[in-house]
């Protein structure tokens, strides 16, 4: 089964890709969507420029798709690009967002391919913990929820960070997997990568949210 993996560089798309590779499927492309909207509901915006380095480390060709900011138009370039690629299916990191999954399913339906989401509705607490235990190095690249302060920017998720997220979940109800947009992430290394992506960054913090500004990045 020839697969295009939608790839933002974040933890969910990385793990979905990892699953597809270990389903024995032929993952032929990573497809990254660069939205011109800073507030895109569909796509992962912060640190997306790092995906080129991540793709190189993973060893798969990266297909870049630029989408317009209008919510209803942003899927159109992706749909046409997927059709051109001639794949049997896409694999996405949809975890709990009905909005994201439903719209991806729809464009796949339109062009006659399948839409798989290997981590859909998995137990979020177990999933993120297993990912960390399995050697994925998940870096926080953006914080958008109460309880996540500037200190979280650039932090690599480890047991201590996960325990703190559990407590924040109990206190503020935030998703430990960041599915409600509480945080954005970038996987700088994992078992599916040959080299670690080294990231030098500065923090940009405004009132109660912020993101990292990548100054320099390279493969170690």
């Amino acid at each position, binding site marked *: 089964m020839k697969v295009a993996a939608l790839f933002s560089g974040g933890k969910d798309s990385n793990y979905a890709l990892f699953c597809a590779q270990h389903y*024995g499927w032929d993952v032929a492309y990573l497809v990254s969507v660069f939205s011109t909207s800073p507030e895109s509901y569909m796509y992962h915006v912060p640190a997306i420029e790092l995906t080129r380095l991540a793709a190189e480390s993973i060893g798969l060709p990266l297909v870049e798709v630029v989408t317009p900011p209008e919510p209803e138009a942003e899927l159109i370039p992706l749909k046409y690009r997927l059709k051109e690629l001639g794949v049997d299916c896409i694999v996405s990191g949809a975890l709990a967002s009905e909005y994201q999954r439903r719209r991806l399913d729809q464009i796949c339906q339109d062009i006659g391919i399948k839409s798989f989401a290997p981590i859909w509705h998995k137990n979020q607490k177990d999933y993120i913990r297993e990912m960390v235990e399995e050697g994925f190095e998940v870096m926080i690249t953006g914080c958008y929820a109460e309880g996540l302060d500037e200190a979280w920017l650039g932090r690599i998720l480890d047991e201590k960070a996960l325990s703190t997220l559990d407590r924040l979940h109990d206190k503020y109800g935030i998703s430990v997997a960041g599915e409600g947009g509480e945080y954005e992430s970038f996987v700088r290394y994992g078992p599916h990568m040959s080299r670690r992506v080294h990231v030098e960054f500065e923090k940009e913090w405004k009132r109660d949210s912020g993101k990292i500004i990548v100054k320099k990045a390279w493969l170690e």
Partner: protein
Amino acid sequence: MLIRNATYYDGREIKKGDIRNGDSDEEFDASGKFVFPAFNNGHTHLAMTLMRGAGDGEKLQQWLDNTIFPMEQHLTPELVYRGSMLGLLEMIKTGTSSFIDMYYFAEETARAVKKAGLRATLATPITSFGTPYYKDANDALKIAERQLKSNDGGPVQFCVGPHSIYLCDEETLLKAKALADKYQVKLTTHVSETRKECVDCHEKTGMWPVEYLGSIGLLDRNTVLAHAAWLTKMEIKLLADSGATVIHCPTSNMKLASGGVMPLPELMAAGVKVGLGTDGASSNNSLDMREEMKTGSLLQKSHRWDATVANARTMVSMATLDSKDMAFISLDDVRMLPRHDLISNLVYSGGIVTDLIVNGRTIMKDRVILTFDEEIVKKEFLDAASELLG
């Protein structure tokens, strides 16, 4: 044995007429019955019938640590014999005539299989550390070699069973392989059952599990790999090139939430020999290969959103891989009606197995087992299960 008036499946199509099984002059009237190759269960731990239902619903590691390992501390040869006998009873009643097994006190399972009249390839699970049955890997290998020396070419044979790459170090794996080569027998092991196993192997060796096994010379035509639920396409090619057999264990993989699904269409397209197994009754929880065929088919179709994969004939070919025996179901069994497609009925709706012939010998006739007393086996088993639970 001459089987007369049969409606039978020869692996390709349904035929009618007389067929032979074994050399005896005995005759068997198969009027009104559907005859198909008896099942070959490619991976199980027979005596784990004793643990059926214990710790159900726990996470894998907790289940092993809290339920299975403590119970296994108390196993005795007699308990394994009784657990094996009940497993054989279930196999006969559900049409299985042969299996590959990995469990402790394998001589006791051999004794049970000989009494029941089935075929089996049995292995002692070899690990790098001591267990209640042996003090270390070398001791386990000695036990395995003692068993191999007793092989006589009969229906019950021993093979070599290093447990897995996560419970065996490289030296143990290599010694196990040397033993299998020396005695020209199969080597069976668990592989790529969980993501943790895969990533741990990758971290330690830089290779994925099947790739690693290939790199140390453990893949060849005599290798039988159970589970293979998480495979990369590179590993599929390695399997195809090596001639190794893989055994799909869909129910166990789903019940233990391994998350991976064997890439069956890719393996078959690459020419890999694929069988079907139930795994132990502790994680299935049955040894019924009819259920396993249906479950395996449904899993593949659902996982891939593709109704064309893992069709009934594919599942029967996997479940009866290398079968030399015959099982029977009444053509009037309500679940075999109508008879548009008997193979589809066999896989998806089922039917009660009425008879089993193994190597020209009738093991079950009209649901009555001829080789042992079913009621005594059940009673002795229940006593054993109670003893094990303490």
